[in-house]
């Protein structure tokens, strides 16, 4: 791999190979590679023209859109570090991430209902670019995305190279230290190229995507397709699964990416056999394990399709392992083997390698592994050791080297495509008067994989209104963090040092709530 190359170079090459090919489709409107590139250059030229220096952080609070893609690649082409933030997050989370990253630029959807409160609490305010219909008069620090595209300034400084920093992706919320995964262009490029290679992506491919680009998985779908000269079609969400399947049919999509819950939702309400999905040559699954039962249902529903079960982490740019589809049935339950140029080892707590079939922690090493956590040397040192990434996942490798995951060592809850830190939810519930203590865990959920459950201890003599607790959580947290289940308990199980025994709570039986 050329060490000076970046994913922006990959995009440029796709533009040169097929300038009139469709890069992105949104709401029936197709954007060609040449037109996308013009937008990318306009954003880069605008940022450089207003003083963006190499390594300056550019925050994106944008839903999936052509504007997101132009802003993302434009900021990278200008030499900036993209800080892609969850567009459905509440303003306290967004403000914390923007402060922590030190972002001096912000691209935000005009219709984001958090934008006003977010900007009101940022001091100094980043230079802000509104995306979407605008009536405001642009100023030095309040700018309009469409006007930037129309001005079409060209960048004047040289493009970034592989060693330059490219991206910060935050994996936790406001409680404790925010963890921003810092990636170089070379990290993203190596992983992008590896994925393009094993999926066999080319310019004839097209994918309808529902995964948000601000997450690692969605980001990899974006980068791989534009690197391959393929077409990405943006879909709003999965709320009406039948409409999504119809779109796959209408657009003759060749690929689709989802998390376990995506397939659970699709299979539960739509008879895929009733649709002509003959063009769909592959689907991918990542972002948490998929049960063998669901995998087998997917195989039965899409017999013509290669099904790629994958495993990764944001800290590894996205992807660490994939299960070759021709081994899927033979190695059911496995997440496969390491992707190109990556090594996987399973180790004991003392760092020694385990034997085959012996459970330990999954470690990974490769060109896709992050630089570290932004401005957090302590967390970095705890996670990166001698160029190896400690994933925090438990698993084992079989005699053939296929990896099987058996659990997480951390408390992170994986609900659908989202990652939730219990402490973020606990902090908000603890604000409710009458809540003495609270502990939040992930419990098994047929559709989401895991669902958020809160165990609440009331202050003696207080009668808690559980619906009120959920209402408060909804007002303060992104909707996916609001506990699906609440249970009042007399006390929380704890260790002798006073730490909550979360494992015991997880095992305390079926989820229930009384709200």
């Amino acid at each position, binding site marked *: 791999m050329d060490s000076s190359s970046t994913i922006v170079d990959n995009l440029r090459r796709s533009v040169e190979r097929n300038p009139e090919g469709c890069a992105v489709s949104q709401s029936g409107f197709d954007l060609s590679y040449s037109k996308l590139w013009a937008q990318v250059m306009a954003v880069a030229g605008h940022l450089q023209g207003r003083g963006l220096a190499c390594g300056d952080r550019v925050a994106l609070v944008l839903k999936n859109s052509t504007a997101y893609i132009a802003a993302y690649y434009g900021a990278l082409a200008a030499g900036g570090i993209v800080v892609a933030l969850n567009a459905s997050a509440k303003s306290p989370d967004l403000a914390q991430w923007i402060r922590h990253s030190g972002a001096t630029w912000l691209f935000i959807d005009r219709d984001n209902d958090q934008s006003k409160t977010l900007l009101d609490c940022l001091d100094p305010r980043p230079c802000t670019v509104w995306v979407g219909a605008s009536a405001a008069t642009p100023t030095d620090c309040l700018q309009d995305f469409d006007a930037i595209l129309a001005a079409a300034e060209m960048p004047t400084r040289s493009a970034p190279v592989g060693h330059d920093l490219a991206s910060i992706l935050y994996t936790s919320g406001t409680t404790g230290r925010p963890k921003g995964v810092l990636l170089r262009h070379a990290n993203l490029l190596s992983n992008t190229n590896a994925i393009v290679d094993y999926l066999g992506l080319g310019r004839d491919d097209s994918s309808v995507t529902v995964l948000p680009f601000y997450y690692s998985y969605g980001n990899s779908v974006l980068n791989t397709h534009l690197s391959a000269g393929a077409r990405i079609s943006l879909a709003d969400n999965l709320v009406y699964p039948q409409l999504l399947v119809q779109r796959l049919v209408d657009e003759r999509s060749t690929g689709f990416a989802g998390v376990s819950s995506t397939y659970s*939702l699709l299979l539960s309400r739509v008879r895929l056999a009733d649709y002509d999905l003959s063009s769909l040559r592959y689907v991918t699954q990542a972002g948490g394990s998929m049960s063998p039962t669901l995998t087998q249902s997917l195989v039965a529903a899409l017999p013509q399709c290669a099904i790629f079960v994958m495993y990764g982490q944001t800290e590894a740019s996205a992807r660490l392992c994939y299960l070759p589809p021709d081994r899927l049935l033979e190695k059911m339950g496995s997440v496969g083997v390491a992707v190109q140029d990556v090594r996987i080892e399973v180790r004991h707590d003392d760092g020694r390698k385990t034997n085959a079939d012996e459970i330990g922690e999954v470690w990974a090493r490769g060109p896709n592994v992050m630089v570290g956590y932004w401005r957090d040397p302590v967390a970095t040192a705890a996670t990166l050791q001698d160029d190896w990434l400690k994933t925090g996942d438990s698993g084992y490798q079989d005699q053939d080297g296929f990896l099987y995951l058996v659990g997480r060592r951390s408390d992170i809850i994986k609900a659908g495509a989202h990652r939730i830190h219990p402490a973020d939810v606990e902090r908000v519930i603890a604000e409710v008067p009458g809540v003495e203590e609270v502990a939040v865990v992930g419990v098994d959920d047929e*559709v989401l994989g895991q669902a958020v459950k809160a165990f609440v201890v009331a202050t003696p003599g207080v009668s808690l209104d559980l*619906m009120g607790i*959920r209402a408060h959580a*909804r007002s303060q947290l992104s909707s996916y963090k609001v506990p699906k289940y609440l249970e009042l308990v007399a006390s929380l199980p704890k260790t002798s040092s006073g730490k909550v025994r979360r494992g015991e709570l997880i095992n305390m039986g079926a989820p229930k709530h009384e709200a």
Partner: protein
Amino acid sequence: MSIRKSIKSFILRNYLFTDDDSALSDTESLVHAGIVDSTGILELIVHVEEAWGIQVLAEEMVPDNFDSVDRVVDFISRKQQILV
């Protein structure tokens, strides 16, 4: 309890966590207002099936039938007429 009252109460209690009737208008888009997501809409559909004994077909799972209190009420009413 009328269909409208029952559907509205279900949405208020399960997605907005309130009994305050004014928290949701009957015409408000449940998706665009961020009230239901992909799993929420399935819960609503299962509730409609169980509470009114009707079957929601895949092709009926569209915004025209489920994206507001008004639309859900109309949908249930139409399905009940078919059943009769």
